[in-house]
């Protein structure tokens, strides 16, 4: 599993390098989102699920990570936007539209990575969000 920093770098590269292979890029984008959430779930002492929700493992992972209290769900919509951008690329044959979707999808994936890494690494952020509290309570 790659670290948050490595995931961030890969997202940046994907945004620039894969414009010619958009089908693969869409899959990679989704996978980077999943890896972000895997880091979060491992940090909580759990094993990331291989199940899917609405056809996507990313959404099942988010559901797994956000379970319990307090449940603010601040990255729920970011995950759903990532799936939406994946779907745009998977379903549309227009290369220009797909290239735009990839670029915006990368910004969405990056936000997810920055947000999850931020709440996982920095202490004293408060209990407003779903899972910083369990992380710190476990001494991670």
């Amino acid at each position, binding site marked *: 599993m790659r670290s948050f920093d490595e995931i961030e770098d890969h997202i940046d590269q994907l945004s620039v390098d894969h414009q010619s292979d958009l089908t693969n890029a869409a899959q990679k984008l989704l996978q980077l989102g999943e890896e972000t959430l895997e880091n979060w779930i491992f940090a909580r002492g759990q094993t990331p699920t291989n199940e899917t929700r609405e056809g996507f493992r990313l959404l099942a992972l988010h559901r797994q990570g956000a379970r319990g209290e*307090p*449940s*603010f*769900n*601040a*990255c*729920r*919509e*970011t995950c*759903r*936007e990532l799936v*939406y*951008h994946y779907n745009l690329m998977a379903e549309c044959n227009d290369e220009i539209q797909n290239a735009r979707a990839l*670029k*915006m999808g990368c*910004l*969405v994936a*990056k*936000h997810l990575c*920055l*947000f999850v*890494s*931020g709440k996982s*690494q*920095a*202490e*004293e*952020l*408060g*209990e*407003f*969000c779903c899972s910083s509290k369990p992380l710190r309570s476990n001494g991670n």
Partner: protein
Amino acid sequence: MPEPKKYKRVAYYPGCALEGTGHAYNRSTKAVGKALGLKLDEVKNWNCCGAMEVKNIDPKLQTYLSSRVLSIAANQMNHKVVMAPCNGCYHNLKKAEYDLTHDPDSRKVVKKLSDKAGHQTYEAGQAETIHALDWIKEAIGEERLKSLITNSLSGLKVANYYGCMYTRPRHIFPEKDQGPGSESTSQPHFMDDLLAVAGAENVNFPLKTACCGGAHTLSDSDTSTKLVLNILRAAEFAGADVIATECPTCHSGLEMHQIRAEKKFGEKTNVNIMYFTQLLGLALGLKPRKLGIHENISDSMQMMIEKRILP
């Protein structure tokens, strides 16, 4: 559907930020309200809602602090509706309402502290808390608003940014997700609706409810800057001229970290940042100074002139 009449005159809870960094939001909210014929009665002797700081240390104390504001509005001022334009205040007042409805321990603590402070205890259901977006949308409505627009925002591309607290957690906003006409927690649209009526073109902005990093600002400024930079880039990539905000914390975070991103990471972005009330005020023909546009860090005057929204 709520009754529009009850929103025409409301108790106004500006909260701490609107007396400091969010002063332009305070000013533009009042100016727009006046232009629309709406009345704001500021909550007397209001206190901090408990914000993030108190909530982290003692959540029930935060519930009490928010309940005191509601108590003054309901019991001393006889108001049934409290309008809070700040997302943090709005969220905390809604959370207090939820806790007082569902948690007997919270009721006990609030009663004890209210007695000690010497004021009447707030009882759940005495007042309804609304945001500035609800206030304008419900009290005026889109058709009436359209008839009052004298300076269309036509040609202006807007990314509407709601931040994370306006819709979360979902269970404290029972009036949302109630079908047509109600606000959505996953795809909020009230700000989009109002600015579209004012003539603006709303761009598709996937980070409209993403975190601005406000809670990281002091403990980890770099994370905040990166989160904001990402929001600014996404708005630019979406084609926006301006990001419309409805929260003073998000607004000042976007403005300050836009500058910090350039200084610290050499990353310059050009998208402007304005409160939705400032944009609406311009569309209603109000002067920029009345709307506190000169108080913004992000200088949008030139852009407004180029877009022919200002002469």
